[in-house]
């Protein structure tokens, strides 16, 4: 309920919006205004994740682990958790989410979705039943923005900046989109070594952002074969836009149109 007209002011549940620059992007929160006190610990934790998992910081746990200076046991336990998630996703995606061309597991490829999902769970743990956390275009939502209304999430068009390709709705769900639109070509098909080019963008919806985000990356690398793959992954749905503007979606994709 951001720009939405409502009946009367009494029916307007007060919302708090907050945009936090962290992890190289901006994380936007939409929570009840009454839940403001739950936010600072979550923000602090996201900055801790940034410091711990950043591959751009020489002294982060991830950097030191990568250089062999720290064992996994010596790192923050969250690293083992993220690596475990990486391995599961790698297997489910048939190796499309490996991570780096060398096949090494790549925590940074997964950590953003994981941390946004976790940020949502921290809010839930503080009693916040309605939230939307948007980490640079990947979202974890819970509850309803207003009584009786689902969250409505616009999917940015990869071909026409400022426009939407579709809208999805849901209550407790995650939405992740992978594409070339914002950061330039950056996804490589690990099986061919070629840059992924079949799709302009692919969106994955499902219960958890950790997996949805990684699936989106993998599906983008797969290209059009991702459609059949996504149909077989339980609980997750896909929507894609081709470079020529054609779209496809899996049978259960929660499009609102």
């Amino acid at each position, binding site marked *: 309920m951001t720009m939405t007209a409502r009946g009367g002011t009494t029916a307007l549940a007060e919302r708090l919006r907050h945009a936090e620059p962290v992890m190289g992007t901006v994380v936007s929160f939409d929570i009840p205004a009454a839940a403001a006190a739950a936010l600072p610990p979550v923000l602090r934790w996201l900055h801790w994740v940034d410091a711990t998992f950043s591959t751009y910081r020489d002294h982060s746990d991830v950097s030191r682990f990568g250089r062999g200076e720290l064992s996994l046991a010596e790192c923050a336990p969250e690293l083992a958790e993220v690596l475990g998630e990486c391995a599961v996703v790698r297997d489910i995606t048939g190796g499309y989410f490996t991570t780096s061309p060398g096949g090494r597991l790549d925590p940074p490829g997964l950590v953003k979705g994981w941390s946004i999902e976790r940020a949502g769970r921290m809010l839930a743990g503080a009693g916040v039943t309605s939230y939307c956390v948007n980490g640079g275009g990947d979202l974890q939502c819970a509850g309803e923005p207003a009584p009786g209304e689902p969250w409505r999430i616009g999917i940015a068009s990869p071909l026409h900046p400022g426009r939407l390709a579709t809208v999805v709705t849901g209550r407790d769900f995650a939405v992740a989109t992978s594409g070339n639109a914002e*950061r330039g070509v950056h996804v490589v098909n690990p099986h061919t070594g070629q840059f992924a080019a079949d799709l302009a963008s692919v969106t994955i919806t499902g219960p958890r952002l950790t997996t949805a985000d990684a699936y989106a990356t993998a599906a983008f690398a797969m290209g059009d074969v991702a459609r059949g793959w996504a149909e077989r992954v339980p609980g997750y749905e896909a929507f894609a836009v081709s470079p020529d503007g054609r779209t496809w979606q899996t049978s259960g994709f929660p499009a609102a149109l």
Partner: protein
Amino acid sequence: MRRAILALSSTLAGLVLLLSFKTHTPGVTGTGTTSAPGSGGTSTGSGPATGAGSADMAGGGHVGHSARPSRPRHRARAGTRTVTGTVASTTYGPMQVQLTLAGQTITKVSVLQRTDDGAESNQIDSSAIPKLIGETLAVQSAHINAVSGASYTSAGYRKSLQSALDQAGA
């Protein structure tokens, strides 16, 4: 289905005018998370100096904002307020728009600045601006809470639809 999608895309085209929005009027949000241009003592650091929500992205202000629940936003929402966009480059040339909001509802869109560099541009303006204004207003019918898209950087956030929503919903 596809026809409907295209139709929606068309109604949202005007959003581009919102993309470089920043809160112009002091106290517009009533929460201290944004500030007027030029007051940007908090706009230092990695945050962009001139983009939408630049003060919002300045790091230090966020926790402080959140720690001030006694300054509820409904105070600002109750009345009419205006937000003024920075000059945006559009396919129709540089433009600046001003939104008037009552609560969260956009009630008026004004063009404060339009191209003035030749007859052709003016001709485009006269026909295109009303259309763009109409499309901007139509955004409300989409009832969007947030936007998913290919990952944006903190710099890209300034141009993102999510940024426009954060600004308008503030």
